[in-house]
């Protein structure tokens, strides 16, 4: 259960090796150890993530999760809830991919779409069903500013996040009557494994900073947050820039 001061007792991370996801768990666990379920493909990184959280006193369970196999997702989510209620579920998996490959290679494009959009949808449906049954809970979906207005440099990724963002924004409304809170987090450029080697965009941030914003959003039951916060205003302006001008901007 989430208690009166907003501490959850259990957190599920879909994409259990996600740096942002793990940073969120750590931020919650800094107040109090949690029961954590990490859903990801088996890998050394998953083992390392488990060890990292156990060091903080968390009880960690791992389950097998393959984002490219949506037909398995209901079962994965069912398994995640088998050990008791899940108070907070993080939808934290995603691929960035190489944009120039992605818009010219069918397989690369489809993989991005499947992982970032299709899997996010199937996981969201399954989580929504489980949380409605348990009568409480919070879902956090990590979207991206890239979904807000697609840029030439990463529009395939951006298009998948746009779809994912729209789905979870709708899910926020759909699950509200069930007492389930859905928060969409839109980070900007975050320094992670995913963005290694890329030159950081303005207002770039860290997984820890995104985590702090996310924890605060869950505690206040916010529905949409940006990381960092000022991106809200930057993107709100960029959204309305005419296309000929937008094309010339160094964004």
């Amino acid at each position: 259960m989430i208690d009166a001061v907003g501490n959850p007792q259990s957190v599920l991370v879909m994409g259990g090796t996600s740096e942002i996801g793990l940073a969120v768990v750590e931020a919650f666990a800094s107040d109090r150890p949690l029961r954590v379920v990490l859903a990801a493909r088996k890998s050394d990184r998953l083992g390392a993530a488990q060890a990292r959280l156990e060091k903080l006193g968390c009880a960690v369970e791992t389950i097998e999760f393959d984002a490219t196999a949506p037909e398995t997702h209901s079962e994965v989510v069912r398994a995640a809830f088998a050990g008791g209620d899940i108070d907070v579920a993080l939808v934290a998996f995603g691929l960035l991919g190489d944009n120039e490959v992605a818009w010219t290679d069918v397989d690369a494009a489809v993989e991005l779409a499947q992982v970032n959009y299709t899997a996010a949808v199937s996981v969201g449906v399954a989580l929504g069903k489980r949380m409605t049954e348990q009568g409480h809970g919070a879902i956090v979906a990590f979207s991206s500013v890239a979904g807000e207005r697609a840029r030439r440099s990463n529009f395939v990724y951006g298009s998948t996040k746009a779809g994912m963002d729209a789905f979870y924004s709708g899910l926020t409304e759909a699950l509200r009557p069930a007492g389930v809170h859905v928060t969409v987090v839109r980070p900007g450029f975050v320094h992670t494994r995913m963005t290694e080697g890329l030159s950081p965009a303005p207002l770039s941030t860290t997984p820890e900073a995104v985590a702090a914003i996310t924890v605060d959003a869950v505690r206040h039951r916010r529905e949409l947050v940006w990381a960092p916060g000022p991106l809200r205003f930057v993107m709100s302006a960029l959204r309305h820039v005419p296309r000929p001008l937008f094309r010339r901007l160094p964004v």
Partner: protein
Amino acid sequence: MPNTSLRGWGRTAPTRANVVPVRSAADVTAALAAAGPRGVIARGLGRSYGDPAQNAGGTVLDMTGLDRIHSVDADSGRVVVDAGVSLDALMRAALPFGLWLPVLPGTRQVTVGGAIGADIHGKAHHVVGSFGNHVESLDLVTADGRAHTLTPSDDLFWATVGGMGLTGVVVRAVLVLHHVETAYFKVDTEQIDNLDELMARQSVDDEKYAETVSWFDAVSTGAQFGRGLLMRANHATLDELPPKLRARPLRFDAPQLLTVPDVFPPGLLNRLTGKLFSEVWYRKSPTKLGAIQNITQFLHPLDIVGEWNRGYGPRGFLQYQFVVPLERGDVVRGVLDRMHAAGQVSALNVLKRFGEGNRAPLSFPRPGWTLCVDIPVNDGLGPLCDELDELVLDAGGRHYLAKESRTTPEAIRRGYPRLDEWRKVRDAADPTGVFTSDMSRRLELTS
């Protein structure tokens, strides 16, 4: 789909449940038979601060429709009531017979079933004990749908007293009330300069008063820290009433003046307003001995204002109430010092000395100091309360489940060493775990 959002008096941590109105024991049996995998809990008037009367995804029985007062026996003081009867309604019915409910908490908007489930206490605890001490028998519908009449010779009776509704559903009780001549109190109020003096003063002459409590100011600092009012009273006799009250000595004199609208922003209760409130509250009652007061003035000043919990805004608030052994009165000071250092404001601080506890394994009162503070929910409150828990538990203290909303299962295990004894009785009465609540999940009360 579970269709009603429920939360406690502290207005925190809402969850959804299927609320089923109950008007008879048969309704309870039917609801138990229809219950799904998320189980059942009974709910009265929702005055518990946290989540004991919530059951996310499951069934919550609304007991307030089970509200008949079956009989009042003026001679013996025995009353037979349904579990959904409020203490307020019971008092209004019993007072004309010269009968007084010996245990009254800070509000009368509590059902008899809830009072048993939380084994509530009042300002008279040092003399009369807690609510369970005045129950002659109770009818409990257990998980199998059958009703049992339990008396204090049954273990299940004592597991139900203070058992937070997790043994079954209380549907009816026989209570024994006290005889009084009037509905008024003869009150001695002493204005005292600081906390040490207040505690010293409160430690003497306790036996001379039926009711004792002190309120103090934890906002003012320095020499004024803990300045407060020690209020002690006995029931006024007919001779002691002023002439104009003597005509109707048993009149239930309990006004409610206003209801707080639901429009407060967060942060309304802050250091400044807390200080103003503290100043006013302290000044309003200079030392005065032998004043005649009605029940609202003495026992329930907050009942003058309905829905006062709204004053804390949308994030809600919590009450932190604990008891520590009498020789560890220093913890009271320690807790207040920590709160003060962390910048948390509590405008309403209530201090009381408990007398002997009863047999119930989960009953809160035990001989000791009990402090209750109100704190609005804000950032940093969680870690602070975790620190306070350590102070309390290390001193051999514990938390009051009716007010609890954020501690750990471990803290409850430490504070209630007889938890396993209670579980054994509970599990025998409910082997498949039908009775469950958000609190029982959160604190792992049931296995």
